[in-house]
């Protein structure tokens, strides 16, 4: 025999652990220590059936804990305080005696605690906890119903199995229905309590900025946080440039961004159109990263500049997504005359060695393109190496990089090349963004981390902004960062990606999109085209299932006759419900009706001999039913 209380205790422990798991990292240290202690104490008390913490002291303790955190509630700390109150009430409930009402309170608190965790953490751990919590709470509530009927109920194994088999229908079907409800529940694009939502840890960090000093990007190289995911096809290695910002002004050693000249206008020419969906991780900056060169963005409110920099109207602190149309291999063509002066502006002071180098190349170069080639040859001749340590950091970092240390990070390559371009008279700017990324073939997207932050150069050559990546000229290409997915990481990241895509970023737009898609599919519905040999098989299956259906209906057609008689008799003699235990003949005697008696005799004759009704008998029975109905 199984004691119901023992099972309920187990489910209560499970529910408590599951609701606290996603919250645990956000709780204060003393609370973190108190919760496992309370759970352990609760288990011991339940085993011994002795509860030192009585009802009244427990109520006083709960009230004290409530007021302690309630007084600290503020707009910023609201979720933190409420969550602490919930988990502490749960902990107190764990160590006290558990009546039916207490179990119910425990389950309700567990659900509220899990709900509270959604305002602190959006990770996929929630789904795991939710599924198990639904299982524990629903089965727990079913057992609680039995417990309420009889607190000392003990069940045999077959009884328990039967109850659990039925109880498990609840979570199983609830979770299936959950998917449907999740899709159709009404949403708004402007939630009033948005401030309650979690600001992910990544949001406290900024990505590529509008200001790059030597060493800035190198410091990001150690950051393994995810920058964004880009859903789309696999790209050739030389095209994996994700454009973020454009730095167009030199202030000493530093490249900064100023608004591009107002009359500047560009257009994209050539290239292969490609569409991607970008899922940026929450950040404090507003830059919208896009595959270079981007043509069109859709899905967020943004501002576009002539140098193809897209800035969101609001910081991307919440998870979002946007679609980008790019031209793979396309050229950025300048419309009209260029503001050469703006893009050739050198810093106030230039090292003499750089100035003399620039003068020599400017004199040798017959055109802008030729000067670019000469500079490339110079870079190659210098045998520069890609490195992440012992980097140039002096005031004249470009000179130090090119002539002394000859090792540097991507911004050293780009910054010095950009400077030399300007010095030789070629308009140039730096583009900050990301390069590379790990392609997840399982789910078809690029995972780009902050460590992939990159800077390259754009030079205005023959009316086109030409992308030049001097980092690629390093003599040690093996030292360049490589990004590859392991099989397990690919799987885990794919799950995280789908979680973000299907759940976290699902909004009103997604709902409308789904509706539209369903509408289109309904409108364009076509019967599937079956290959010619499949038709006889399909027709045969259809015929067979129809025959089986008819056979089954034929076999069951006499089953409804006694019920029909009961209904007619009830209606005719204004009787109450007739129990199924009452035989037809008994009923006929009760109402003393010859039609009913004849019906009972004919039906019983067949039923008692265990043979089907003959067609004559069936016809007569139906006729009798009709007469009874008159």
């Amino acid at each position, binding site marked *: 025999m199984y004691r119901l209380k023992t099972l309920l205790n187990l489910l209560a422990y499970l529910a408590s652990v599951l609701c606290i798991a996603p919250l645990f990292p956000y709780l204060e240290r003393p609370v973190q220590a108190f919760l496992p202690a309370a759970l352990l104490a609760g288990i011991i008390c339940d085993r011994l059936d002795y509860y030192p913490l009585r009802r009244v002291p427990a109520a006083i303790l709960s009230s004290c804990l409530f007021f302690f955190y309630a007084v600290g509630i503020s707009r910023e700390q609201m979720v933190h305080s409420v969550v602490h109150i919930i988990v502490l009430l749960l902990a107190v409930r764990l160590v006290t005696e558990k009546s039916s009402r207490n179990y119910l309170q425990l389950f*309700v608190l567990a659900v509220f605690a899990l709900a509270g965790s*959604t305002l602190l953490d959006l990770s996929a751990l*929630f789904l795991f906890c939710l599924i198990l919590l639904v299982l524990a709470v*629903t089965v727990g509530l079913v057992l609680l119903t*039995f417990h309420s009927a009889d607190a000392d109920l003990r069940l045999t194994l077959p009884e328990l199995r039967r*109850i659990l088999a039925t109880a498990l229908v609840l979570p199983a079907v609830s979770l299936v*229905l959950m998917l449907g409800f999740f899709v159709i529940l009404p949403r708004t694009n402007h939630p009033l309590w948005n401030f309650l939502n979690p600001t992910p840890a990544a949001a406290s960090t900024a990505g590529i900025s509008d200001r790059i000093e030597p060493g800035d990007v190198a410091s990001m190289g150690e950051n393994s946080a995810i920058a964004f995911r880009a859903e789309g096809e696999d790209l050739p290695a030389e095209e994996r440039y994700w454009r973020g910002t454009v730095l167009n002004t030199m202030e000493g050693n530093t490249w900064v961004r100023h608004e591009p000249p107002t009359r500047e206008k560009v257009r994209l020419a050539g290239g292969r159109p490609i569409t991607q969906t970008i899922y940026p991780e929450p950040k404090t900056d507003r830059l919208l990263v896009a595959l270079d060169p981007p043509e069109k963005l859709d899905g967020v409110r943004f501002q576009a500049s002539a140098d193809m920099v897209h800035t969101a109207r609001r910081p991307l602190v919440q998870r979002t997504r946007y679609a980008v149309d790019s031209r793979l291999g396309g050229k950025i063509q300048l419309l009209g005359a260029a503001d050469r002066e703006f893009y050739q502006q050198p810093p106030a002071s230039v090292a003499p060695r750089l100035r003399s180098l620039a003068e020599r190349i400017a004199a040798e170069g017959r055109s802008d393109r030729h000067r670019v080639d000469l500079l490339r040859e110079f870079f190659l001749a210098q045998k520069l190496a890609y490195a992440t340590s012992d980097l140039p950091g002096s005031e004249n970092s470009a000179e130090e990089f090119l002539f002394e240390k000859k090792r540097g990070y991507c911004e050293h390559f780009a910054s010095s090349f950009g400077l030399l371009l300007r010095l030789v008279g070629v308009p140039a700017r730096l583009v900050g963004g990301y390069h590379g990324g790990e392609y997840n073939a399982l789910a078809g997207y690029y995972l780009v981390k902050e460590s992939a932050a990159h800077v390259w150069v754009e030079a205005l050559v023959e009316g086109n902004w030409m992308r030049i990546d001097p980092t690629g000229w390093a003599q040690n290409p093996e030292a360049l960062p490589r990004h590859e997915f392991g099989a397990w990481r690919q799987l885990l990241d794919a799950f995280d990606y789908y979680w973000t895509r299907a759940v976290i970023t699902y909004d009103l737009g997604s709902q409308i999109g789904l509706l539209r898609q369903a509408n289109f599919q309904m409108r364009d519905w076509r019967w599937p085209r079956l290959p010619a040999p499949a038709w006889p098989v399909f027709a045969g299956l259809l015929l067979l299932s129809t025959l089986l259906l008819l056979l089954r209906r034929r076999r069951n057609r006499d089953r409804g006759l006694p019920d029909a008689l009961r209904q007619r008799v009830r209606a005719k003699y204004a009787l109450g419900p007739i129990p199924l235990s009452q035989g037809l003949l008994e009923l006929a005697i009760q109402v003393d009706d010859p039609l009913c008696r004849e019906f009972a005799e004919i039906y019983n004759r067949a039923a008692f001999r265990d043979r089907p009704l003959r067609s004559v008998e069936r016809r007569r029975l139906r006729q009798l039913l009709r007469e009874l109905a008159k």
Partner: protein
Amino acid sequence: MTLFLGFAAVNTGNNLLYLLVSALLGFMAVSGVLGRGNIAGLSVAVEVPDEIYDARSTLVTVRLHNEKRLLGAFLVRVILPDGNLLFTAVGPRASAVASLTCTFSGRGTRPLGEIQLSSPFPINFFVRRATVGESRAITVFPAPRRCPPAGNGKAVASGEAANDARGYEGDISRIADYRGEPMKLIHWKLSARQDELKVRELSAAACEPLIIDLASLPGNHLEERLGHAAHLIQYCLQKNRPVGLRLGSRMIAPALSRGHKLRLMTELANYVPA
């Protein structure tokens, strides 16, 4: 709770809260369907004894049958007009039997009344109810009251007298052909002489029949007299004394069988003075 969390989900736009609310809504929908399915497809058969006396405890047997093919029936309470029974679990296509003592008040024939089923399954938030019919009628007999001696004090005195009826304990009344009587009644000597089985027919040992006249029974009111009559019927039949009944101008001849007893009691139960 679902409403509150739903309100929070809409106002925060938090999709994880939406997931939780969706799960709760799904749970509510399934529990509703499961609760309804739990109480459907059940039939109740109530077995009451032949003799039910007014204001006396009577053992009633209730059989709950679950006609569903797959689903069991859990925590089903069968509510009778005078008491209820809880069936914890009845498997699919299975029955469970339980008994309870009921007390029926007031003599007469009447329908047993509505039988209700109720169940809080699967969760104790709502109790579902259904009415299952029980069209059979029950007859509640008047509660027997001990009858005081009347007149010469011999109103209920018993005595023995020979009876014309056939019996097994009286004197030999005649010899007859064998028609399947018990072996001890076969007259072996005579059978051997006549070459066919002969049996002794004995007269039944019986008391003098008693006819109870309701009008002449002691009692302050009708119910009291009916109680006395019921007691006398029981007493006489226990003593193997044929008993009859006079109700106004109607007369029911004395007899001894159990069927006769039930008939007399039913007459008393349904008696309405002219």
